[in-house]
């Protein structure tokens, strides 16, 4: 199993094709450097989540290769991939405590060693949840729940972190706070981060690289600064314009 700590891993999607039953065909080619921070933007239904699902292994491509840290993971099941993922919601099991939910990151049957327990306590403290170990998710705020998910990411120590619109259900202030926390964790651990988001502010605050997904494929990739300052492709400006008009 991959136990690459304190560093990220490079990521490459080579000619990945995929289609949902009855849906249009998608195709992804993408190279991400180790420890990069990437924002994935694009209209609803353009394939952002699908891209992340393919990397995580929840969906199997029809053809192509996925390489993470030099290893071909195309045929590996999700838990064998050096990847952690945080969803928009439902990241926690409602009937398990905060500590148990984090502990699942070390052992899927919750058989934890002393070392595991220490790591869990450490991660909980790190994400600002100290003192809430015994709580159930229902006794937490939306922001706190996502922190628990982050704590689990920390104990899993996987070199790639995928975030699928993780703050869409949080208010702007909370979202910023969470972004800062992820940025801090990134500085410490250096994992490669890919985040799907609708919000250009999230991308600006956090990412170095921006990937623009449109119509089931990656239509542009470049530095976030350049894209957001109006020097990106025209299609991206149109998307941003439409997005701002909606807000």
């Amino acid at each position: 199993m991959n136990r690459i700590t304190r560093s990220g891993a490079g990521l490459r999607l080579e000619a990945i094709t995929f289609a949902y039953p009855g849906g249009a065909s998608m195709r992804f080619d993408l190279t991400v450097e180790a420890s990069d921070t990437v924002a994935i933007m694009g209209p609803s239904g353009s394939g952002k989540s699908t891209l992340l699902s393919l990397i995580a292994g929840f969906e199997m491509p029809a053809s192509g290769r996925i390489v993470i840290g030099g290893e071909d993971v195309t045929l590996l099941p999700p838990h064998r991939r050096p990847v952690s993922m945080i969803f928009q919601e439902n990241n926690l099991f409602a009937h398990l405590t905060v500590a148990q939910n984090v502990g699942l990151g070390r052992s899927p049957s919750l058989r934890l060693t002393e070392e595991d327990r220490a790591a869990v306590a450490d991660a909980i403290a790190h994400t600002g949840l100290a003192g809430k170990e015994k709580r159930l998710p229902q006794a937490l705020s939306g922001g706190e729940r996502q922190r628990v998910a982050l704590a689990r990411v920390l104990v899993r120590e996987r070199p790639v972190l995928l975030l699928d619109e993780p703050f869409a259900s949080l208010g702007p202030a909370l979202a910023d706070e969470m972004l800062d926390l992820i940025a801090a964790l990134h500085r410490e651990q250096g994992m490669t981060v890919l985040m799907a988001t609708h919000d250009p502010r999230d991308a600006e605050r956090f990412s170095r690289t921006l990937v623009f997904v449109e119509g089931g494929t990656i239509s542009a990739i470049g530095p976030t600064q350049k894209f957001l300052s109006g020097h990106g492709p025209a299609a991206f400006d149109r998307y941003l314009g439409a997005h701002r008009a909606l807000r």
Partner: protein
Amino acid sequence: MAVRDEPLTRPAQTGRVAAGAAALAAIGVLLGGALLGLVQEAAHGWESAAAAFDLYLLRVARFTLWQAALSTLLSVAPAVLVARALARHPRFFGRAFILQLFAVPLALPAIVAALGVLALYGRAGYFAPVFTALAGERWQGIYGLPGILVTHVFFNLPLAVRLLLAALETVPADQWRLSAQLGMGPIASFRFIEWPVLRAALPGVAGLVFMLCATSFTIVLTLGGGPRATTLEVAIYQALRFDFDPARAIVLMLVQVALTGTVVAILSRMGASMTGDTSLPVAPRRALFPGRGETSLNAVFILAALVFVAGPMAAVVAAGLAAELLRLAGEQAVQAATATSLLLAILAASLCLILSAALVVARRALELARGAAKPSLLEMAADTGAALVLIVPPVVIGAGWFILLRHVGDVFAFAPVMVVTVNAVMAMPFAVRALRPAYDAASARHERLCAALGIAGWNRLRFVDWPAMKRPVATAFAFAMALSLGDLGVIALFGSESVQTLPFLLFQRMGSYRTDDAAGLALFLGVLCLALMFLAAHWGREGR
């Protein structure tokens, strides 16, 4: 013009509320008459009623509970394994077909299923030679407790599977993904994902199955053998039809109502569904990666359940096709029973629809009128009135009237009225479930508009409500008709040479060992009910 501070829709309410009150009154008369029969008879001879509290009663009550408990255990425990197996494999060839097949027992008349079980495992059944060879002596058939249990499991295992699977479908897709990412094996996944959901659903499912088995009449009547395998409902029937011992019937009815009342009270406290229908997504997209060992084990569970459920159905078809269908169709008794059955079923379904619609409409009108205030007694009655029949089972209603009517004249002359009314009330919980969501949704959309334009009464029914209600009404009608067509409760009490329905005729032919005729009739009745249920489901789906 004076502006009064009044709810917008006040004038439109009175008609709807009156309709509801009338429907409640009708249900009240039906149930009240049965109770009156009870009370009046008990007042006459309470000594003999008291004397009926004997060992026989105790034995019957104990058997009722015992067989219901066993049936529940044997249905629900395997259902957990099968439902879990189906949930873990959201996509494989034939999955949709299996789920469809598991919905069939819901629509199959109990007597048809009983015949299927007998055709398979009975003394002269398809498996009899096998069992004879295995046991080394002549196979005696599965009458008595084993037969009752097998048939109850045939009905309730698929029901429980569907209900539990529906519960498992509520697990968010992300949780399955999470479990895949964390590498949970089948045991961890069961412990952290499936068991919590199942544990929440199990009491309700088990309670529903227990209730259905505790009030099961037809299956026990056809498969139960003698005093050692008799339930309360069948004992009521025997007390009236064979022994003519009203005192004993009354005591049995009291015990039955007390028993079902208790179960229903417990169930409704748990918020369980008491009509037990579910709709399932066909093939949910789910990230699951079961290993080879688990996959084969799951395949075994699913196949075993499939064979068990499909067996009696196949036996009905095979035995039915082997019968002389043409001669049967030409028989005068069969034609008469078919005509009677269809006529009574149509009348029962119409009455059921009228009563159900009146309750639905009245409840909504009362809800609108009260605003944020607490619901009135009438509104609560309109809300739960349809469910009363769950506490007082059809056979008990029939028995009460049977006792009352014998003072009036020839009891058997009332057969058509009794069948229509009791079958109508019996189908009401289902009809209300089909009608109410559609009506409430349509009302929420149109109520203010109708008030503003002054559309009320007949015009409102014609232009506003009917278009929205067409499909749910058709669904409820077909469903109620199928229930009535297949019912052998009231007709068993009131049936005679002059008034015979298809299930009654089928029961008679089974009783006189004309097995071939019975098999042919069962196939005919089964196909008829399934066709109606199929139509009901079809209209119900498109109406959404």
